């Protein structure tokens, strides 16, 4: 619903709570209930993109057809572990704790 300002009045909205723009789910943060998070070993990853296909949300980010070096999206990962389950090389490990840690394998370097 993020295309409406948070202070939008009831009569300023689309009928029936319809979201009139396509592809805006990424603007809505739904990662708040995670209690495990994935850590991927990029050295082991073969870029098969199974994790990207199977992720039920959009937590696996891809750039130039590669996940290597790309962070998981903390706004969308719910810690379900499907990416770890489907990884054919077992490169993804689910680690206790909701917070992604800077410097973890599979996470971008701290700026």
């Amino acid at each position: 619903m993020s295309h409406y300002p948070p202070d939008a009045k009831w009569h300023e909205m689309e009928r029936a709570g319809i979201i009139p723009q396509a592809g805006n789910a990424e603007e809505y943060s739904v990662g708040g209930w995670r209690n495990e998070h994935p850590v991927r070993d990029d050295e082991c990853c073969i870029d098969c993109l199974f994790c990207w296909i199977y992720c039920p949300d959009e937590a696996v980010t891809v750039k130039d057809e590669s996940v290597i070096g790309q962070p998981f999206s903390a706004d969308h990962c719910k810690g379900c572990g499907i990416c770890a389950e489907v990884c054919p090389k077992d490169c993804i490990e689910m680690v206790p704790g909701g917070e992604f840690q800077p410097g973890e394998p599979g996470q971008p370097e701290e700026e």
Partner: protein
Amino acid sequence: MGDNATLEQKAQVKGKVALEGNEAAAEAMRQINPDVVAAYPITPSTEIVQTFAQFVADGEVDTSFVAVESEHSAMSACLAAAVGGGRVMNATSANGLALMWEILYIVSSLRQPVILTVVNRALSGNINIHCDHSDTMGARDAGWVQLYAEDVQEAYDNLIQAVCIGENMDVRLPVMSCMDGFLLSHSYELLRVEDDEAVREWVGPYKPDMPMLDIDDPRTYGPLDLYDFYFEHKRSQMAAYPYAKQAIIDEGRRFGEAFGREYGLIEEFMTEDAELIAIALGSTCGTLRDVVQHLRDEGVKAGMLKIRAFRPFPAEEVVAALDGASAVAVLDRAASFGAHAGPLYHEITSALYSYGKHIPTNNYIYGLGGREILPEDLQSVFDDLQQLAEAGQPAEPVSFLGLRE
């Protein structure tokens, strides 16, 4: 034409045909020719869908007929077809309506003008197939417009108007067109079935509004909607009902211009100078008319108020119609368990209170599970009203008509 003429021959002379309520509803659906009908049979509404399915099989309509495995699925399929951009109709009764419950709210929340004929029947338990209003009264908060028919002609007329009321661009709400089970659904009545072309022209083609299958302009229906926006969306839904009220008036008038039978939110029968007024929904109004006429012949200032539109509730119009009455009786064909009176009584007395009017008002629960309501029962209501007018306050607001006690 001699006395030996058949009913059918006599009817043709008057330009009318003899149909059961269910057949009349199926005829209206054939003429409306909806895009999709998804239905599951239940007594006493079964014949509507059965007859309509034959129209589909015979190629008399262009409708896609979806045979589903339950009423929950029926209403789900109707919702999906409506959101996809089609004109959608369905019919059910009692427990079938109850099984649709969850989806009823979603259809109205998503503002889809699905048209549902409800043939009113008692809800279980114990199991009973006959008329009362417990099914649609239970669904009164589900966000659907509700029209109640007094006779088969009105059931036919209401179903046609329901399409244009629901599809009005300011309204976009689902509509229940209600008729009393067996009393109307299985009773033959002479009625005028209008010309196919005239009905199709009156109803007009369906205009989809933001359909989900518009792939060039995609939209999301029914997303997660939490404490940050849900309240605003419900408020905006509430804003549609005054428009629905206006659409019922406008379409009732337009129907009258086209076919000679005009309708409104309520119908007043001899209320103008009435001191004693009885209020009811559905087929009981037909019996009430006769009783009121009889009382008038005896010099009693009796009147009848028929509530045609129960949702949205015409509070202002009801209060105006009751102006000047010294006692009022509200007839409820449903119980509201645990409430202090029946559902129609609550609406009427709340409307009077809100507009600062105090008229002594009795409530009668009657006709549950198809218990017959006879002229003498209604006569006794007016006898009570004479006493109520003198007493100024009911000793006990709720009593029961036709109950062994």
